[in-house]
């Protein structure tokens, strides 16, 4: 079976600062991988590399068996043109820390935009499945509401519906609950838990230890641009072997 995500020695520099110092990991289909670690450890940068929002400087990164953002000719990598990168991204859904809903569009318009404009789905079909998705995230009564009139938790649930509307094989979550008021975190995690249950492949950067322990199949602990420890969340998060993992967990728990 091809891994959904396969990273081999991924390096990323911002100017002189090396943010990723050789990340290698593997996500199998239908797996939920949770990436934890202190801020500045490179976990957000890594998840953004998976759909080529950041270009990697060295190493290889495959999604479902295809190189991300590059074409290999002999030994050299050539960056793909904009159109090719865009096509590849239609298979990868992404949810951002700050929601990034399109402010000039209603919840429904946010969800149907990419299916209609990118996938050329007929409008009535796109609207029907968008309404179904909004119902699934519990927002059937907010279809015609603009993002500015929604709470953070509601906005994030629209953002999840928007990503799902493209029928992705893989969902990336970049700290999806970090910008939310504490009482709104639960409703978003609930939607994500539902996605995991129906077999969606997910990579989740999060500080929610409880979610990682209960929903995650693999937990990865990153620090200073490297993977420090990874494995079964019940092991990594309950009985960490590495000192850095231990000290991080003792601070957040």
């Amino acid at each position, binding site marked *: 079976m091809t891994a959904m995500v396969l990273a081999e020695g991924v390096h990323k520099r911002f100017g002189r600062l090396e943010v990723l110092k050789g990340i290698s990991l593997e996500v199998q289909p239908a797996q939920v991988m949770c990436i934890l670690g202190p801020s500045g450890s490179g976990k957000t940068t890594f998840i953004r590399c998976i759909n080529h929002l950041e270009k990697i400087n060295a190493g290889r990164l495959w999604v479902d068996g295809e190189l991300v953002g590059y074409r290999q000719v002999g030994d050299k990598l050539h960056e793909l043109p904009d159109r090719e990168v*865009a096509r590849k991204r239609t298979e*990868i859904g992404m949810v*951002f820390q700050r929601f*990034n809903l399109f402010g000039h569009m209603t919840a429904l318009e946010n969800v149907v*935009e990419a299916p209609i404009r*990118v996938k050329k789905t007929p409008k009535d079909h796109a609207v029907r499945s968008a309404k179904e998705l909004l119902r699934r995230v519990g927002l059937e009564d907010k279809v015609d509401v603009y993002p500015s009139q929604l709470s953070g938790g509601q906005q994030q649930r629209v953002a999840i519906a928007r990503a799902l509307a493209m029928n992705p094989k893989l969902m990336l979550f970049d700290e999806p609950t970090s910008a939310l008021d504490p009482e709104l975190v639960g409703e978003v995690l609930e939607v994500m838990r539902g996605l995991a249950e129906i077999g969606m492949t997910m990579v989740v950067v999060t500080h929610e230890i409880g979610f990682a322990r209960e929903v995650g199949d693999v937990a990865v602990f990153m620090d200073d641009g490297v993977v420090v420890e990874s494995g079964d969340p019940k092991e990594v998060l309950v009985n960490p072997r590495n000192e850095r993992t231990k000290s991080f967990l003792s601070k957040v728990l």
Partner: protein
Amino acid sequence: MTFALAVSMTKNKNFGWSVVGHYMTDSRILHGLLLTLELTAASMAIGIALGIVLAVMRLSPNPLVSGASWVYIWFFRGTPVLVQIIFWNYIGSLYPHIAIGIPLGPQFAHVNVQALITPFIAGMLALGLNEGAYMSEIVRAGIISVDEGQTEAAHALGMTRLLAMRRIVLPQAMRVIIPPTGNEVISMLKTSSLVAFIALTDLLYSATIIYAATYQTIQLLIVASLWYLICTTVLSIGQYYVERYYARGARGQARTLQDFWLNVTDIRPFFGFRR
């Protein structure tokens, strides 16, 4: 004080208000007005379309593309618009014919420049190409005012750079672009009177021609100014509606036209009331 000024202006016979009233609907003035409006509309249309293209080019990651835009803006903002108007008017004597084809090879099309570039076309091109340089900076300001997360979310959904720009970034940039564009339209309304130099009889030039014969200088200038004021007023109302359209989804939106007039006609500040 405003009131006193108004009284003195109506009482003073030297203003000759009956003459003003007479010339307001003079056919030469109305023709001039029509030409001013046509010229403003056409050159602003060119300016806005060109401004969007130049702004998107300027923000391109390709240095050749953004460099080309930079050079265009540098040149057209850096030379007087009057010179540009006159230059376009005389382009026919510089290049009487333009042939499109391969140099020293076959020709595909042949253009008689002298017949094509009428004074109106020259004025429209000069004002429009010049305006494009200014509009591009206004559009660019609008584009960079939109949060980068919007572009990233669009890209993450598989939109190409151009599609994300057209569907996501530009519509939201409009909120920032519209007010200075309103300024530009109103300014163009009056700048377009420079076409008098190439003998186009716009509103102001028509007034000038009339008073050169009748010596009713002040009256005719008042006629022209009143027409400019009327056009500006209509444009301001139009701008209000356009702004309201692009404010959809934004916080604190949807004021009514009544609010607009309450604001405009609010005289309390003049009497020292604090709102």
